[in-house]
């Protein structure tokens, strides 16, 4: 069986070219990547860094499920979902999602589905560290 999904949860910086290499396929005409980035501001406050933590086994199995669903729903070829944990500085990449497909429309739809669903269901949490405090993102209104 050809492996068509690669899920990684890592303490090390993520690599766009590693994701690209995984999803490349001689029959793929289009590849879409979503790359998350750590923003320096949130609601007008300066963010110094972010701490990510994950309930690791379940985060991996939920990301695997999302990729499987996306392949089934949109008929795409290969999906890589790589997510960081640990401390990230501004500009570092918390997540990369790469999708290859024979046709580009399906790749766009599948990639958007993966990131939208990841943000709803995958047990990963980020804490924003400010000069004067810290907050778990989205925990409270």
């Amino acid at each position, binding site marked *: 069986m050809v492996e068509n999904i690669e899920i990684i949860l890592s303490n090390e910086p993520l690599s766009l070219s590693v994701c690209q290499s995984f999803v490349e396929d001689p029959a793929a005409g289009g590849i879409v990547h979503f790359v*998350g980035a750590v923003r320096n501001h949130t609601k007008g406050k300066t963010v110094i860094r972010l701490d*990510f*933590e*994950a*309930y690791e*086994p*379940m*985060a991996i*199995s939920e990301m695997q499920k999302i990729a499987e669903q996306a392949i089934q729903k949109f008929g795409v070829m290969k999906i890589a979902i790589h*997510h960081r944990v640990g401390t990230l500085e501004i500009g570092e990449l*918390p*997540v990369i999602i790469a999708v290859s497909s024979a046709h580009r429309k399906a790749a766009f739809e599948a990639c958007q589905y993966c*990131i939208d669903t*990841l*943000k*709803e*269901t*995958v*047990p*990963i*949490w*980020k*804490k924003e560290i400010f000069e004067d405090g810290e907050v*778990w*993102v*989205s*925990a*409270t*209104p």
Partner: protein
Amino acid sequence: MKIKVLCFGITRDILGGFEKEIELPEGASVAFLKQRLTDEYPQFQKLNSLRIAVNEEYGNEELVITEQDEIVLIPPVSGG
């Protein structure tokens, strides 16, 4: 029975630790555990959501908990 819950994100701050033992009656459901937590720690009411994972799957409200289950508190996720 005594169950052990694992706490991630803001729930660790609320319960004051990663691992917490909680006394529950036999046959308690996920909904019962959530009610118990909210009664004991009113800060849970302020959360946008609270899900309970049972053995690495989101458990629905009626699911009955046993001592052997891995119970994890899942506050609003914010990955990506």
